[in-house]
């Protein structure tokens, strides 16, 4: 184990997989010479050369389609979309092509590719650069979706993403890049898809999160522990496959659930998770499932009001307190 940042853990995963497998190639806007808008691809061009680490024009839809084609042609491309917001320009290739070609061609091809997408809000980047679009991807069958919360998971999930023959949307939170954690050095360290992590064991309430929301949930659990409230924190790790058994098992134990999503609440993934909890844990629930979501507004710029639009630590703590007060 060694301590490193989320950014460096992703960088290490890329390097390890590129060393291991010659078919892994990296491309995107400013990933090579500039070393990434968030410096995640630092050192890759110098180690692997311009054939395997390549800058491309600002053409997001084609960027994703090139990855689809390259994957169908025998490579393992890891494409970077500079931010998840630009995925909206590429939704045709993501939804109509990447997620469909295997199925509509009767299983005669595989699409082993990863699209890395930094995203999330909280950096005062305004309405067009602060979005959390995870529910958009979850709505569409045909792709795996990861959203790591910790440096270790960032490394292990990305390595699994590169090795699977399925297309993967790999979401990274921009505010987590500098977060630190212990990361296994073993180049064969992998985190499987579809296996949630329990970040904190507890008995009174289950907090379900993903990405940066899982970190906030964990911090909330630590604060609430001081008030004598025992919280179990389930970090989903991957949004597809969704490890329903782990969060349902936890809710069956605690009887209460708070689902924390950074995305908008309207048709958001928190509603999907809440409905699964209602379907399977109805008789066990001691209170209605509580959703803490991003506000259903375009993100404002000013920091005073931006923070009101994104789930905050205090809001999660208060949400748990309220839930306990309204229990049956």
């Amino acid at each position, binding site marked *: 184990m060694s301590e490193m940042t989320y950014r460096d853990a992703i960088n290490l995963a890329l390097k390890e997989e590129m060393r291991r497998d010659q078919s892994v190639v990296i491309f995107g806007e400013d990933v090579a010479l500039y070393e990434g808008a968030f410096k995640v691809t630092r050192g890759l061009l110098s180690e692997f050369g311009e054939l395997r680490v390549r800058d491309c024009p600002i053409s997001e839809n084609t960027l994703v*389609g090139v990855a689809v084609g390259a994957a*169908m042609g025998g490579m393992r491309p890891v494409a970077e979309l500079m931010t998840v917001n630009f995925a909206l320009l590429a939704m045709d*290739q993501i939804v109509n092509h990447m997620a469909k070609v295997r199925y509509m*061609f*009767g299983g005669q091809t595989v699409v082993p590719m990863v699209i890395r997408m930094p995203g999330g809000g909280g950096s005062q980047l305004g309405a067009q650069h602060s979005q959390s679009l995870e529910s958009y991807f979850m709505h569409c069958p*045909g792709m795996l979706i990861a959203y790591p919360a910790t440096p270790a998971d960032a490394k292990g999930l990305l390595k699994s993403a590169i090795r699977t023959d399925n297309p993967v949307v790999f979401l990274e939170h921009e505010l987590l890049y500098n977060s630190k954690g212990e990361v296994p050095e073993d180049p064969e360290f992998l985190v499987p898809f579809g296996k949630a992590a329990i970040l904190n064991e507890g008995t009174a309430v289950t907090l379900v999160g993903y990405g940066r929301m899982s970190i906030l949930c964990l911090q909330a659990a630590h604060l609430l522990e001081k008030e004598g409230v025992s919280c179990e924190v389930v970090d989903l790790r991957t949004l597809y496959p969704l490890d329903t058994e782990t969060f349902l098992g936890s809710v069956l134990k605690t009887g209460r659930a708070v689902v924390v999503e950074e995305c908008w609440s309207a048709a958001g993934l928190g509603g999907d998770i809440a409905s699964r909890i209602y379907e399977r844990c109805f008789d066990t629930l001691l209170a209605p499932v509580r959703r803490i979501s991003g506000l259903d507004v375009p993100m404002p710029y000013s920091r005073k009001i931006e923070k009101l639009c994104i789930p905050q630590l205090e809001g999660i703590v208060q949400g748990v307190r309220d839930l306990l007060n309204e229990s049956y």
Partner: protein
Amino acid sequence: MAGMLKDLLPVEELIRFYEEMVLCREFEESCAQQYAKGEITGFLHLYSGQEAVAVGCTAGLRQNDYILSAYRDHAQAIVRGVDPKRVMAELFGRSTGICKGKGGSMHLFAPELNFMGGYAIVGGQFPIATGLAWASQLREEDRVTACFFGDGAMNQGTFHESLNWARLWELPILFICENNFYGIGTGVHRASAQAALHRRTCGYDIPSEKVDGMDVIAVYQSTKRAAEWVRERQRPYFIEAVTYRFRGHSMADPAKYRSAAEHEIWKSRDPIPNLSRRLLEEGIVSQAQLDEIFERCTAQVEEAVKFAAESPWPEDSEIWEDIYV
């Protein structure tokens, strides 16, 4: 094309071109009948009239070259070597179809023949062709990627993005525009600011040419020359094949936006009788031989229909197969 056919190509090649065009035409006309009977449903875009493009281009490529197409893809697949039985079964939605009945008319695919798919979002194949060409270059496969598309697709962003990308990365792609003058019902002059489509590649420094897409020999020669140019230089090239579809955009389209006079002019340029007339004039084949070819093609199509009709439907459990590995 001037000159004697037999000075241009071996006789067996000429006859093969003819037979492939007849097979495609008869296949498509049979599809129309099966659609009318309700055996084929969904969208059905027929290729009748454009056969010289699929046949001439495919002959100008090597078997290991990739081919991608749009939704009007039956002929492209059959000429590449897909068994017409398996194409028809796909259109019938049967489990013996080339894509197990999951793709349908617009999504044929045969990777063992390097037929890399029919794509039904207009322009969706451009980026994928670009990626395939990149992969084959990285893997040193000595392969050209031939990307077919219609005139309408040239107004999609992916066309411009992919041409720029292909030239920038110096990728071995042959872009082949089948200009049949209509994107559904909108004429090319009403959709493209520069209706001389082959001239639109100058912004990407990609050389281009226009060829008579009703003349299979001309298409073959252009493609062969262009494909070898691409292979040697590892750079994209663009061919505009001027052609015409004799039917509407799809079976739902009576094509009222075209005049009867226009249709008649193009019918007089039908690539099949145009080739057979020259074959007869030069004494390369006899009418009896042509009749025999026709009979063979219709028999093959009938066999395909019979195979499709007798094939089983997909199992319900197939719904969940092939989404993930």
